[in-house]
């Protein structure tokens, strides 16, 4: 299993649009994806699970991936979160 901790940088946090993007991205991989925030641990391919995490702006979340393409999955998902789900203006 691979894990990586990332920070939520988009101002609205893990809201509906962000969660939808995350699930779409996670679903491209066969690995099981888990997202951990505080004491909550949710399936990264479940939009309702991600919404229930309620991770706000600046939250530190841990991503876990387990399976054949765990490395690629983790890299892609961490990049997506770090890029603010494409919502943060580029400087």
């Amino acid at each position, binding site marked *: 299993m691979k894990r990586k901790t990332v920070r939520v940088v988009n101002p609205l946090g893990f809201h509906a649009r962000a969660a939808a993007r995350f699930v779409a991205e996670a679903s491209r991989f066969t690995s099981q994806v888990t997202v951990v925030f505080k004491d909550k641990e949710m399936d990264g391919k479940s*939009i309702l699970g991600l919404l229930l995490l309620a991770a706000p702006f600046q939250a530190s979340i841990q991503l876990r991936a387990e399976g054949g393409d765990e490395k690629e999955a983790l890299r892609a998902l961490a990049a997506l979160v770090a890029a603010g789900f494409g919502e943060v203006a580029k400087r």
Partner: protein
Amino acid sequence: MRLSGFAIAPGRVLGKAFVFRRAERQVPFRNIERAAAPQERDRLQTALRAAQTELADLRARLSREAGEAHAYLFDAQILMLQDPLFAGRSLTLIEERLIGAEWALSVVCDELRRLFARASAVIAERSHDLDDVLDRVLALLGGTKGDLVLPAGEKIVLICEDLKPSEAAEIDWSRVGAFVADHGSPTHHMAILARSRALPCVLGVRTATAHVASEAMVLVDGDAGFVDTNPSAETRTDEIPRLTLPRPAEGPALTEDGVEIVLRANIEFPSDIGMVRDAGAMGVGLFRSEYLLSRQGRAPAEDAQLELYRRLALAVAPHPLTVRTFDLGPEDLAPASPSSPNPALGLRAFRLLSRGSDYFRGQIRALLRAADEVPIRILFPFVGGVTEADEILSLVEQLEGELRSSGRAFRRPLLGAMIEIPSAALVAESLGRKFDYLCVGTNDLIQYTLAVDRADPRVGHLYAPFHPAVVRLLDDIVTASRAAEVALSVCGEMAASREGALLLVGLGYRELSMAPSSIRLVREALASSRLVEMEQAVSRVIKSDSLSADSFACALAAIQGAR
């Protein structure tokens, strides 16, 4: 009385109010036998799949009309439909508690709503999406849908408590002149919607639906953020523009070099008929008659259908009303019957002729009788090849025989086959010799040609109307129709986009049918291009393996730039 709220989008208008009140949600409770659980799960799964398809359609429409940025609301809802916490849990509950699908869904939603409320205020707002999804699935399980049909005539001021994304997508916004809601704030999706459509808008008014009745004149001030319920007493109304509908262009659309292209409208409900004329469409190119099937398990009465077809056709005469016969599945014939494992490839439409003959016979008889008085065309969906064509045509003959011997007046209208299965596209010339016209249904033709379910977000991005295979197939159909000397048209979303319409005309299509809301856009796109340019652009890209909407648009722009 003056009601204040957030000033969301500027503009002052005076107009007639239309107050939308949503019907109360009713969730039927049923216990089921253990043996019936698999069937109940099937029933729910079918509804969930159908809901995904509906949402994918709404998403496409919203992204076309309001921009891709707003379409994500539907991505979230489509994902909810597949979510283990929603779909998976509901399916499990059916089996564990032996309850009907409707009740299982509502139990799951209650649980999720509680969790959402605890998570955070931002997330709690997502309960709206959840409710929206729930209502959609309940409606597909046989419940009733809220009625969002706007009255015909002048534009209205839409007043509601709030508007769910799916409701917003179903509204014909060309009839709305201003928008007021009890709930909402500057960041609400209703605000985004109003701004993107440049509609004067006030949100968060709290008591608008309580104080305003439909038909009353109200003044909406989107600059200052208020609504006046009795405007003449409180404001000088003479300088405020009154809502009127601009007269649409009529007759066929013209390319810049004067070639006539017939634009017709696709409609789903009888209440859509007002939009057809308002949009300047030349009649209806596709009436999806399935709404008549909403009473599951019983074929709609022939005389009632006759009355409906006659009324709709009169409303668009002298242009035709094209009625597509029921594109039904086994679940329409008997609510409890298990759906096909893969409904898109399963028992559909005339494949059910032997089991659902009441449905087809009643509908075709009604259409033959209506055609005696009003301009009607019949369109048969899901024709796979010549064998089905012969079956359909011999059924029509048989029904004509029945009508003749019972002394009823009837007339054979134009009969058309829908080209939406690749096999039909490949034998289009043979079909063209049997039917009076062929109508390409691009949505399904693309889905079947590319083996892509566009409701599935994991492969939806592969749904490509401009895929070289699709465009070449569309080209072949034109060649086939010319060889068979048969009329040809297109209905499907491809005809509703700028590039799609220009490509189709460049390929040789001269009749396009689309959502009424797209007709103006397509009319304008055609007016600024010459036929010869569209044809040149097509011939430049048609052999290209990297053909896309963009590459076609670029080719066309390059040709037009060289004028």
